[in-house]
């Protein structure tokens, strides 16, 4: 509880990422409809929602990997749509990203993976980089694994290694896509603790996408609940628990979707989008 309010005080609630009326689509198919919210500097924002609700798409837009059809994404005051490549590179050096499946470079060892951003973007000499890599791996509890290849690590270790790589350039904003999906509860809890530790230690702005309720409530300062490409609720974990929104309640209470009732409904669903 105390930790939760701390970053808020430190940064005075500046906006780190502003999302304004963003729409995104894959081809004809619109997957995000009119999304608007702010992530404040130093807070941990959790984006919660079912599979296919558009969380990953939203996160990719925040990192500038995908361009919105309309609307704006403002990161530290820059509109991502129109940042020239040089400034985009500078901006991205302030990002740390842990992808859904880790996205570690399979042809490099864990040590090389973690070292890559520093090697490419700084002039530090090899021994300094080595120390830095050990430090980052130590931080995520993976010391001694420098020479392993990603394929030799378990799922949880890969996620940790991805976090270590995300931390190399001392980012200001950390993005996590499903950090604990597919991990057993103990390992998943370990990742949650790691995220909390990073927040305490560095006061980073953290955006976490997840569908795991327990993990969301453990780490979030504020959260967004998404459903079919829309934000249906936004607020602190306490406010969320008190929400009366039917879809939010359904998500939190783990109630399955209702079967479509009656023959007409079934017929409608089976023949939808068919040209007969």
């Amino acid at each position, binding site marked *: 509880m105390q930790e939760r309010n701390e970053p808020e005080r430190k940064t005075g609630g500046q906006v780190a990422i502003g999302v304004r009326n963003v729409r995104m689509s894959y081809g004809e198919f619109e997957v995000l409809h009119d999304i608007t919210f702010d992530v404040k500097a130093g807070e941990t924002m959790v984006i919660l929602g079912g599979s296919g609700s558009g969380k990953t798409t939203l996160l*990719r837009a925040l*990192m500038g*990997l995908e361009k919105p059809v309309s609307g704006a994404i403002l990161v530290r005051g820059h509109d991502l749509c129109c940042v020239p490549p040089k400034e*985009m*590179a*500078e901006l*991205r*050096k302030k*990002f740390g*990203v842990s*992808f*859904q*499946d880790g*996205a*570690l*470079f*399979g*042809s490099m060892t864990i040590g090389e993976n973690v070292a*890559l*951003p520093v*090697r*490419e*973007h700084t*002039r530090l000499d090899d021994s300094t980089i080595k120390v830095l890599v050990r430090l980052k791996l130590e931080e995520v509890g993976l010391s001694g694994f420098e020479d392993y290849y990603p394929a030799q690590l378990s799922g949880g270790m890969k996620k940790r290694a991805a976090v270590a790589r995300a931390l190399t*350039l001392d980012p200001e904003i950390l*993005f996590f896509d499903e950090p604990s999906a597919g991990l057993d509860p103990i390992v998943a809890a370990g990742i949650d603790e790691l995220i909390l530790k990073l927040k305490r230690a560095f006061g980073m702005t953290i955006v976490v996408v997840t569908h795991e309720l327990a993990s969301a409530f453990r780490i979030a300062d504020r959260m967004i609940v998404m459903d079919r490409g829309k934000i249906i609720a936004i607020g602190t974990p306490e406010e969320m628990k008190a929400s009366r929104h039917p879809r939010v309640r359904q998500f939190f209470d783990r109630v399955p979707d209702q079967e479509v009732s009656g023959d007409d409904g079934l017929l409608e669903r089976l023949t939808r989008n068919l040209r007969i």
Partner: protein
Amino acid sequence: MAVIETVGQAAIDGLVYVGDLAILTGRCAHAAVTAPFQWRRLRGERIIRQAMAVGVGAIPVLSLIAFFIGEIMALQSAYELRKLGAIALVARVVAISITRELGPLITAIVVIGRSGSAFAAEIGSMKVNSELDALETMALDPVEFLVAPKLMAAVVMLPCLTIWADFLGVLGGATFGVAAAGFTLGTYLHATLESLAYRDIVTGLIKSVVFGVVITAVGSQEGLSTGLGAEQVGRSTTSAVVKSIFLVVAVDLVFTSFFYFAAPR
């Protein structure tokens, strides 16, 4: 009507594809020019690693194939030359066909099979595994980081391999020449050098540089445009090989005609 439409569409698609290749090559060239002014420690290392894979790794199989093709050329041409009583010309026929045409072409085909396919598979599986996205979020451009070193390696290694293939092709021809056409190794090599002009070798090498560009651009382009899912990597690899072979032969035709008509001997 439908036929014309299909053919027209295919032609347009083909042109667009070649345009994409040109853009990709341009971006690599830009990266190569700006690189010395930026601090990029791993760049040299990556070029060397690619050059080893493209060049040194290809030497054993290329040597054998070039040697055999040289020998086959000698055997095939000997049929006719013997009838004409001109068996002594076998060295000349082998030398010219190998240096001008077969050396560069065999080299290109071997590199397509070994490296063009590997480029597509490597970049394609990185794409499927979000590694390309990871590069971008680290402010590293996948084209600059992955494609440019491959291009530089290929452009240097293809002519080198071609010279080597030329040499082994001639040696292959020499085995026949010595065994069945009354040459000694010395007189065969002498006859070879007599019959070759600089331009035979140089035009072959110019073609091989262009082949290197084509192979890398196609392999990388196919890798970068890989769809979602592991089976798409296989598809990209296959189409990288098929498209490179086609484009290499097409480019070969264009250059050979150019050399023939624009600069006759």
